[in-house]
């Protein structure tokens, strides 16, 4: 009898991905914008000696060499607020998105891998949280419990944002569960947790990354709504809080466009860049999308 040795002809996926990554304009542009804004948010505050709430000078000044984004009705430096706000906004987005991703993964993996009644219960729970209008829940939570810090806000956002991620991760896990390499691991007595961490998660790592990016962007948008409605952190400046103050103090009516345009543009840029980078990454990982 003859035996054939079938070599695992795995293409070098990682290098191929990198090759496409470096040629994908969407990814490069998206990441570029994010990195620049992140850089401003991280490094910027070190170049600004006064706290963002300090009254630094003339009120309602349009942008100038001294105050790059002008000042508001109280004479606060809007550039200082913007720079600090960027930092908070990134923080809330990353934290909120991260928490949601972790919960989504935990529930998605467990439901998809275990199946049976565990799946039934978790899926039911996911669907319940999914139909709850997130922002309305956050109103209640934030209003009663009160939010002081950005971390707290991120936590609440993370706790309400995970369901769609859990749902899609569950579906992916479900389809991976019956693959050969998972069967093999299971037959050789490897525990569920290890199989999930070692076999399943790495096989959908690109998908998990994409999910996190979307959650990141979503958290930023939700945070801005919360800030705007008066349920933002009380100990920090964020882009959403800048918008809230601009609205509260009639910046639009007073024609202080430099007060409400930059923070909104900042949010739009961050979230838009995240989404575009996400599409780019998707094309890098998914050869089918590359054609045309």
């Amino acid at each position, binding site marked *: 009898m003859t035996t054939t040795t079938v070599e695992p002809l795995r293409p070098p996926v990682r290098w191929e991905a990198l090759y496409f990554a470096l040629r994908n304009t969407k990814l490069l542009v998206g990441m570029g914008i994010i990195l620049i804004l992140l850089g401003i948010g991280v490094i910027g505050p070190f170049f600004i000696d006064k706290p963002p709430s300090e009254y630094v000078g003339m009120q309602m000044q349009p942008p100038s060499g001294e105050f790059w984004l002008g000042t508001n009705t109280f004479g606060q430096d809007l550039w200082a607020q913007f720079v600090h706000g960027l930092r908070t906004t990134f923080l809330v987005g990353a934290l909120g998105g991260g928490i949601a991703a972790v919960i989504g993964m935990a529930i998605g993996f467990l439901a998809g891998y275990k199946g049976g009644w565990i799946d039934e219960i978790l899926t039911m729970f996911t669907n319940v949280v999914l139909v709850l*209008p997130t*922002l309305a829940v956050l109103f209640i939570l934030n*209003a*009663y419990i009160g939010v002081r810090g950005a971390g707290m806000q991120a936590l609440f956002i993370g706790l309400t944002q995970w369901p769609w991620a859990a749902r899609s991760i569950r579906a992916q896990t479900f389809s991976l569960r019956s693959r050969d390499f998972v069967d093999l691991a299971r037959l050789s007595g490897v525990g569920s947790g290890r199989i999930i961490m070692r076999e399943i998660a790495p096989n959908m790592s690109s998908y998990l990354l994409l999910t996190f990016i979307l959650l990141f962007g979503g958290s930023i948008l939700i945070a801005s*709504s919360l800030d705007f*409605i008066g349920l933002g952190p009380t100990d920090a400046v964020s882009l959403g809080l800048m918008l809230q103050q*601009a609205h509260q103090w009639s910046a639009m009516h007073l024609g202080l466009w430099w007060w409400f345009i930059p923070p909104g543009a900042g949010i*739009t840029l961050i*979230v*838009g860049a995240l989404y575009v980078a996400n599409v780019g990454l998707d094309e890098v990982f998914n050869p089918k999308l590359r054609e045309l």
Partner: protein
Amino acid sequence: MRRYFGRKLLVYGLTFFMAVTVNWLVPRLMPGDPVASMLARARVAQPEAQEALRVYYNNLFGFDQPWWQQYLNSWGALFRGDFGISLWAFPTPVADLLTRAVPYSLALLIPSILISWVIGNRLGALAARRKVLDNTVLPVSYVLTATPYLWLAALMAWGFGIVWGIFPVAGGYSFSMTPSFTWPFFVDLLWHWVLPFASLFLVALGGWAIGMRNVIIYELESDYANYLSALGAPQKLIRRYAFRNAVLPQITGLALQLGVLVAGALVTEIVFSYPGLGSLILAAIQNKDFFLLQGAFLFIVLGVLIANFIIDVIYVIVDPRTRVGMAGASA
């Protein structure tokens, strides 16, 4: 069919149950006497109302009863439509405030959701696999979905309302008017409606266009599309089929997006001081009127659940597979 709706209704029932329970529980988790502390924090319009409110709410909460009795009482009140009395707009019942605001919110939400969904789907379908259109529609759509609702609303209010002065920027109708069923009032109403509607519509539009584009690309690569191409069917027919099939996940997407759309409408109303639920919620938060806030919460949850159910029914009507599969007739 029965199983499908049974499951859905179970989820909705559980959701509502959870919402009511949270609503009941959260005030009781606050330290101290919740009624006293809420009254103390709230900015009650008339100071002399304080005592009346205290009695009323102590009764409503019924702290002298066991907790399960309190819990049942709260369900009882709910079924009677009793959401308590607003602290901020004392002595108006919360239910009255909410039912007055709801038509405004619906007038913004329903048209903006439906029209953005229809047009967004058309746009996305047009753009898919067509280089030039794709390269214009897609980036614009991404910018739109990334825009916070409140910011686009603020930009439009500023641009069209203040700089160019075309549209009013605040209120549901002019202050000088009294609501009535007359043409001038209706026109005035419409005039105030345009900007909030347009900004909601635009942000939502982007999301639908992107969603449709992605789904339809997937459909155009599916087996039935390949088979039709191999049989020489024109692109027109294939795209028609693909569009029709891509609409189905978009209907599901509509259900999933409801929460986000409602949230968008709430903040948009706030920007335009539009007299819907959003403005009520802002007033409730600013005045620490928790009863109003809780009532609004339940209204929104209930509305979203009803909308979800309507979408479920529509889905079954539109997708023959669910009907056939649910009839259990497959060979």
